């Protein structure tokens, strides 16, 4: 097979925009006592940056700080107020 033309083709990768966690000014922190493992935060994360909770394994949600941009949707949507946005400077 002959080589095709050099054209603007990209392939999928994680971190296409780099470590987008660096954009963050505030980071979400979850209170393990309050998390009810409902995964609503996971659902509403535009950055795919939440590892979902597993009720059966008694695992709460976890943030991927490498990519979380700190938008705060998770904190405002959490029905049990288990997520707080904490300044990165603190």
């Amino acid at each position: 097979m002959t080589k095709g033309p050099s054209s603007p083709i990209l392939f999928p990768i994680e971190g296409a925009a780099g470590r987008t966690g660096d954009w963050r000014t505030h980071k979400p922190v979850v209170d393990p006592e309050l998390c009810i493992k409902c995964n609503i935060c996971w659902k509403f994360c535009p950055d795919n940056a939440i590892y979902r909770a597993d009720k059966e394994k008694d695992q709460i949600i976890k943030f991927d700080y490498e990519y979380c941009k700190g938008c705060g949707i998770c904190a405002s949507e959490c029905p049990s107020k288990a997520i707080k946005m904490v300044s990165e400077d603190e």
Partner: protein
Amino acid sequence: MVVKHNKKSMTGNDAASYAALFAKPKVVSAYPITPQTTIIEKLSQYVDEGKLDAEFIIVESEHSALAGCMGAAWSGVRTFTATSSQGLLYMAENVFWSGYGRLPIVMPVVNRCLAPGWSIYQDLQDSMAFRDAGWIQIYTKNNQEVFDTVLQAFRISEDKSIALPSMPCLDGFVISHTTAQVDLPSAEDSFNFVGEYSDPVIEVDTEKPWIFGGLVGPEKFIKDRTDLMEAMERAKKKIVDMNKELGEYFGRTYGNGLIEIYGDDVADLTIVSMGTIADEAQDAVDKLKEEGLSVNEMRVRTFRPFPEEDIVEFAKKNHKLLVIDRSVSFGHAGQLRIEIEAVLHRNKVDTSVEGRIMGLGGEDVPYTKIVAAAKEALRSRM
């Protein structure tokens, strides 16, 4: 292999649609515009009659006509459309997108002047405006060449090492609507010449999650454009090869595929032009020779890629060029003349060049006018 001859009378547009029919494109996406319309009308008829197994997309604009072909080309199938004049302009961003995107689309342009004022007649202003779009441009001189060039265009465009769209150009009405004899090979022989499009330049599918045409930095951008430039260079050889192969298959050639010389190898004056004016110029050469004047002709068949080496080689041994343009780059001169002057200068050839603009707005250019222009040029020769 020389195939059986089969002389038929047909218009230039019919010749183009026969060539497209025989090449068996899988998707035709088209929009009407005079004087191109009868090409795609015929194809829609072939599709409806079951003679052509293809999807015919009846789009709402030329912008979409080419976009439809682009979608098909990205999907790895052979695709065809045709347009003219304002239609070509309306497609503009997709013309560049498909050229720079390396999509092997074949799109005859039936040359017609640009408004205002309205005129449906021929000049080359439309396709000349797209010489920088990354398309192969071949200007034909008669109905036979239209058929042959459309067939060749699929081979050139779909060659993976080239991967550029092709624009076979034919003069409106003078070719498109004028009936002339065409030696029409059988559908089978024609398809054998073109071949299957089996190793696509590009092919999008769910198994290959690549992203085409997203954001790129200057480095990748320049790499792609450099490859485009090199592909144009490779296309020159391909066009020459296609010309030879056409000769082997059908017993016809057009010069060396890039340029075509008529008359003596060396003369006092060389008429240079494209399209049907170049055909008419042959009669002018004959007439002038009868009068004892030394005149020959060079027809530039392939305008993109520009055949620098061939033009320079021929110009070098001749004394003076009279370049007839059927289009103008306003604020400068006729495009063909500009480019010829550039290659002569670059190659330090001092053959003098005189330019004439003729045939704008469909003005008739009979050989007598060319004879008069040639005589004038001969008189002013130092």
